[in-house]
């Protein structure tokens, strides 16, 4: 036993004795050389965001844990939030934190596993804004039926504006459009888009706004998923139609907008009615009005005619006519009778007159008789006994009279 110990002591004299720092440094060098830049996957745990802006967390799998640090300069450009339990893939290098004797992964890049970083960002923002109520239906306003002026936030050289103008030309030749030109992808695009939306709201020179761009990749369309654009749309008093990309592309601006159109062309068709259709509608309405009124008047006239011709209405006239006739008859009758009566009376009269004439002493006189009256008394002498000789008498003849003295009485 002593011999073995002695051997070891001798060997020890030839080995280098490390200090802690030395060994740690050596370990660091070995590790940094071995793992200068690696991709590694795991699940996040113990995530801490320091006030310094540095992030510290662990990546773990079923059997092991790896400490990680992601410094501010690397994590600033992160578009999504890291959470415990999130499965991620990191790119970084191994280093050693001397003071604690910890080895750790200095993370430069981090991606969610199974889903793109952009997609995760999209999901997180969508959820956050949804919870805030930016997608609420009651906040949305209806699109005006016949807008006077249409504003379009888009690239002046893109396919979107071309499509929209083509449709405008076809459907409604006299439509007014104002384009607010913006970058629709790349650096600065989201600010330009948001500011263009705000500008239209300040100018208040349009009744409806289309925010649009043509198709592209998720990265190309990304500006329309940015929070600043979403808020600008939400705060717009002018109704906004979002038409970004193709039918299958959904962006956050689509959710916030008052209406989503699957494509720029669809947006144009939504906002710009077919003038021809409307003109026809009006024309048809006028025709129907005319027909309805003519019909109604015709119907009423018909009713009136029918009533006029009905026996019941003719009756009173009939009755009147009958009475009129009767009156005429009676008049005739009366006339005849009066006539008759008059004739009769006059005949009677004539008869009487002749009778009278016949009986008239004057008539008698005509026949030769005479009337003798005593003068001066004037009484008519019918009896000669009333006379004496010498009486004066007047004798009236048929023609003339004379006065004589009585000579002889018989």
């Amino acid at each position, binding site marked *: 036993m002593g011999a073995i110990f002695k051997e070891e002591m001798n060997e020890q004299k030839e080995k280098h004795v490390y200090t802690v720092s030395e060994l740690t440094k050596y370990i660091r060098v070995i590790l940094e050389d071995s793992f200068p830049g690696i991709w590694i996957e795991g699940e996040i745990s113990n995530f801490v965001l320091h006030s310094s802006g540095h992030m510290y967390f662990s990546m773990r799998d079923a059997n092991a844990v790896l400490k990680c640090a992601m410094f501010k300069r690397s994590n600033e450009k992160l578009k999504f939030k890291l959470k415990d339990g999130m499965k991620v893939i990191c790119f970084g290098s191994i280093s050693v934190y001397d003071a604690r004797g910890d080895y750790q992964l200095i993370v430069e890049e981090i991606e969610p596993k199974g889903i793109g970083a952009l997609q995760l960002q999209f999901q997180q923002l969508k959820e956050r804004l949804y919870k805030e109520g930016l997608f609420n239906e009651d906040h949305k306003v209806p699109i*005006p*039926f*016949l807008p*006077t*002026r249409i504003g379009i936030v888009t690239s*002046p*050289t893109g396919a979107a*504006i*071309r499509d929209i*103008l083509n449709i*405008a030309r076809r459907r*409604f*030749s*006299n*439509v*007014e*459009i*104002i*384009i*607010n*030109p913006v970058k629709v992808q790349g650096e600065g695009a989201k600010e330009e888009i948001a500011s*263009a939306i705000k*500008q239209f709201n300040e*100018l208040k020179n349009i009744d409806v706004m289309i925010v649009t761009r043509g198709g592209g990749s998720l990265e190309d369309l990304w500006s329309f998923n940015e929070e600043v654009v979403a808020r600008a749309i939400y705060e717009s008093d002018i109704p906004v139609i979002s038409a970004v990309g193709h039918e299958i592309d959904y962006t956050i601006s689509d959710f916030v907008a008052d209406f989503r159109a699957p494509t720029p062309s669809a947006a144009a068709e939504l906002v710009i009615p077919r*003038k021809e259709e*409307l*003109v026809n*509608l*009006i024309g048809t*309405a*006028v025709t*129907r*009005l005319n027909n*309805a*009124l003519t*019909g*109604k*008047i015709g*119907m*009423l006239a018909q009713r009136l005619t029918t009533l006029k011709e009905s026996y019941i209405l003719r009756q009173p006239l009939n009755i009147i006519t009958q009475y009129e006739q009767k009156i005429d008859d009676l008049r005739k009758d009366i006339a005849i009778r009066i006539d008759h009566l008059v004739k009769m009376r006059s005949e009677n009269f004539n008869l009487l007159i002749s009778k009278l004439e016949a009986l008239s002493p004057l008539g008698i006189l005509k026949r030769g008789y005479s009337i003798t009256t005593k003068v001066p008394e004037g009484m008519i002498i019918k009896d000669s006994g009333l006379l004496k000789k010498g009486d004066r008498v007047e004798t009236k003849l048929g023609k003339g009279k004379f006065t004589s003295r009585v000579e002889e009485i018989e």
Partner: protein
Amino acid sequence: MAEMKFEEALKKLEKIVGDLEDGNLPLDESLEKYEEGIRLSNMCAKKLEVAKKKVEILLKSSDGSVELKPFDEKAAEEAKPHEAKKKRSKDEAELL
């Protein structure tokens, strides 16, 4: 009186047409509604002609002021970088 919107006027017009076609209104009312219907249809027809044919582009200057200029589609197309290059190389080819 605030001017009625086109859609409102059109809806009213359609209602009047319906009422008249039902034929149950007394004559006076029918005549009144007919007149209103014609008035509305004239209003609608006019509204269709209110807009002028105009496509403009908003230009912002550095001092923040805003100007509206007629939008020239063709000019915008030629302003595209790759289009400009094509034109230039064509010119260059002609020079040779």
